[in-house]
């Protein structure tokens, strides 16, 4: 039987990136994924007749430029669309446009423009510093080795180099909430909400949740990684998966799609391989899981195969997402009031007020449906007509706040999904009158659906809440940091490991580097 150096669980972007870097270093690597399409949450699916949608992630805004180059992803077919500004739709029709550091819109004051520039510049400085930490394994604080100490030293120096004012601000801001910071800086409610949206995307937090400045800086790291605003992937998000797959194969990575890993096998005190849904057992020196930590430890390895304290950490790891999605196939281009024809291809957001966001979060804490939602809308078929039949369009929207668990049950008699869809369309129609008449097909996706279709616990695309206590040197939790846990031969390389989620790729790359550095495969 073939024995691999490494079996990577999951052909998501991080899994494929880890595989490629390991294979580049001459290691024999097998990637296994239950889904028949590579890319994980970067996926495309057929939707109604002739329509295609990115059914999980819809934007690229954090992808590491360095990885794109090192893995020649463009040569393997990756084409990103144009960098898109954000248009924050206002009920008054006086929309705001946020494009890099520039801010425009009828209701925007000169002082807000100035403050926005200053705010962005400061956040950029913080993000740059954070990137230092993101590009390497997060240092241990207690059992730090020399590498860890160097990272900490460089971080400390970086912090000092920002100057007294920035350093004090960062220490103050990083744990507080975006709501207070927005009110400190800006006047325009729509602007505050637009920035706050970037702080809460993909989380189970509201603008007033502590820690939301940290999540905003996390998002800003995307700019430090070479992204400007958001982009769509031409051909749908699945094309990113396709390019990563093609690159991995070129490096010699073996890939088995459509076959689930059912079990991580532990022989005596170390992991020795995996069992597949086909019943095949495949052996390897190390198993690297890009599945989220809960799936990895609870479902694949099993709590009985780790120490109890570790099992407790896994059980207490917070994974619930508050983000769902709306998918629409449209017979024509919808018309958002006050948005010019070509601007419909930009990122359109509906987030009128931070208070509305916060009250939108409240019901989901109690496992109830919210009646006010926040939308992050993409009409990708404008820039990429291949996604829909000629003259027709698809719309996808990230929608906050949708509860992971619903008291009445998502599939209860009350038709919770239908109720949610109706509520979303009603809210959407206020900004795009007549959109309902264009609908050919529609679908709401709730966090539970992502769990079922993409295997992410809690429906959380960050593979676990991105809060300080679950980040950096504590990601996913103490005892399992630096891409490894207490089980020999088992590594983590997914978004549940440092530096966390979104289509970034650094978790995958750092994990590969750590495994190679440890020399376990030599």
């Amino acid at each position: 039987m073939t024995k691999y150096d490494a079996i990577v669980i999951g052909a998501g972007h991080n899994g494929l990136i880890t595989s490629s870097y390991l294979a580049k270093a001459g290691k024999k690597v097998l990637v296994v994924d239950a889904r028949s399409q590579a890319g994980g949450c970067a996926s495309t699916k057929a939707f109604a007749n002739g329509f295609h949608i990115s059914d999980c992630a819809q934007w690229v805004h954090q992808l590491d430029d360095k990885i794109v180059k090192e893995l020649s992803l463009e040569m393997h077919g990756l084409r990103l669309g144009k960098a898109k500004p954000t248009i924050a739709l206002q009920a008054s029709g006086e929309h705001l446009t946020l494009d890099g550091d520039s801010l425009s819109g009828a209701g925007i004051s000169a002082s807000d423009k100035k403050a926005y520039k200053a705010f962005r510049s400061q956040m950029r400085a913080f993000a740059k510093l954070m990137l230092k930490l993101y590009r390497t394994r997060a240092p241990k604080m207690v059992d730090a080795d020399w590498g860890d100490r160097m990272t900490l030293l460089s971080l400390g120096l970086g912090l000092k180099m920002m100057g007294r004012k920035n350093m004090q601000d960062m220490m103050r801001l990083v744990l507080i909430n975006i709501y207070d910071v927005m009110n400190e800086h800006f006047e325009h409610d729509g602007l505050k909400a637009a920035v706050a949206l970037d702080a809460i995307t993909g989380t189970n937090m509201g603008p007033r949740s502590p820690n939301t400045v940290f999540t905003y800086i996390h998002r800003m790291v995307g700019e430090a990684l070479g992204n400007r605003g958001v982009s769509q992937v031409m051909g749908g998000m699945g094309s990113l998966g396709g390019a990563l797959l093609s690159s991995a194969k070129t490096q010699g990575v073996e890939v088995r799609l459509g076959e689930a890993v059912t079990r991580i096998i532990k022989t005596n005190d170390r992991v020795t391989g995996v069992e597949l849904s086909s019943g095949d057992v495949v052996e390897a020196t190390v198993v690297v899981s890009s599945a989220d930590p809960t799936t990895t430890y609870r479902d694949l390895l099993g709590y009985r195969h780790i120490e109890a304290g570790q099992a407790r950490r896994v059980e207490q790891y917070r994974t619930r997402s508050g983000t769902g999605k709306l998918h629409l196939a449209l017979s024509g281009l919808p018309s958002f009031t006050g948005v010019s024809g070509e601007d419909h291809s930009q990122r359109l957001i509906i987030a009128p007020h931070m208070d509305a966001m916060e009250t939108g979060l409240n019901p989901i804490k109690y496992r109830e449906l919210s009646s006010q939602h926040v939308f992050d809308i993409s009409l990708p078929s404008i820039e990429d007509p291949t996604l829909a039949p000629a003259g027709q369009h698809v719309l996808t929207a990230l929608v906050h706040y949708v509860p992971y668990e619903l008291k009445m049950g998502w599939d209860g008699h009350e038709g919770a999904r239908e109720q949610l869809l109706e509520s979303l369309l009603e809210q959407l129609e206020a900004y795009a009158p007549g959109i309902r008449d264009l609908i050919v097909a529609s679908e709401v996706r709730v966090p539970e659906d992502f769990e079922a279709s993409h295997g992410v616990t809690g429906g959380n695309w960050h593979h676990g809440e991105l809060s300080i206590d679950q980040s950096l040197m504590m990601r996913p939790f103490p005892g399992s940091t630096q891409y490894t846990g207490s089980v020999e031969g088992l590594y983590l390389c997914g978004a549940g490991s440092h530096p966390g989620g979104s289509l970034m790729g650094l978790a995958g790359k750092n994990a590969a580097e750590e495994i190679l550095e440890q020399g376990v495969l030599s």
Partner: protein
Amino acid sequence: MSAAERKTMLLPTPFHSRVEQYCELNDWGAWQGYTTPNSYFDVELEYFAIRSTAGVLDLSPMNKYRISGPDAEAFLNRLVTRDVSKIGVNRVGYAVWCNDAGELMDDGTIFHLAENDYRLCSYMRADEWLEWNALGFDVTINNESDDIAALAIQGPVSCTILTLIGCEGLNELKPFGIARFDFDGVEMMVSRTGFTGDLGYEVWIDPSKAEALWDQLFEKGRDYLIKPIGSHALHMARIEAGFLQAKVDFVPAEIAVRPGRTRTPLEMGLDWQVDFNKPLFNGRAALLKQKEEGLRYRFVLLDVEGNKPAEHSFILKNGKQIGIVTSAAWCPTAKSNLAFAQVEMPHGAVGEEFVAEIYYQRELQWTRLMAPCKVIEGPLFNPPRKRQTPAPAH
């Protein structure tokens, strides 16, 4: 009015009406939320009852957890450091357990009651830790501490007295064995276990029969000079027998606040309890690492010169403090002044000599005594009757 009716903060045990009656000194202490005697009539006479006749200790406050289900053995094997599969049905085993960091949490005994059915007796409350440990295992954990009354009957005539109250053939029970008898229509479980290092038994019964059991024992045992014993007499006996006491000889990891105050089983002389051949148990990786990197402390038994117990003493080597005493007593039967101590490595090899800095008070006057002491192999009290089967008759 009895304490049971008075609703005191501390709870009465099922034996309370009898214990209260026998507790002539009215010297009460708290044990796991229950009121139990420190001493009944005279600590030394109580101690001598254990060694010469029979002493009876109410151990009802002991935490008792029933662990049952198809994964019971696997669950326990992940929980404790020893190999539980070696404890056969109707056998009892001593066990210690750690957290993931290899820090000692507690010690106790595992009773293998039947296939897939165990009872774990622990010093500390362990409900939460056991529940976390149950994740991923098909086991049921039931805290039955209040559902079972228990007495320890320890000493040379313990077997004789128990036989007289109906434990026919008990003398054939091997050390760490379990036998069951009928008592007044209910099952009475008897295990040949104890905390005194002597011939002795522990009796487990439904609380409704507690008082009747006590009455029977003291009636049939009167001629054999059976005596109730309190925690102080037990303390002397267990030191003589070399038994550790949680919270006294080590700080259980869950209640340790200050860094560095916990100990691992290896540092407590419990390496014989740690089975690295098991692929997994809580703390295995940390203990393996410590074994490779070296211990910080060593647990030692000291023979201290003189007759002043070295309680809370510093242990000095060439005038420098290298350890502390955790338990100490003048042990009458061993005729030795014994102390348990933790010393810094590499100290503590058998035969090494130290000085114990002892402070004692006589008529308000504190006196400092620098007593030479020596590391010895234990335990000093280890009579043949502890092991003999059949148990010697009297």
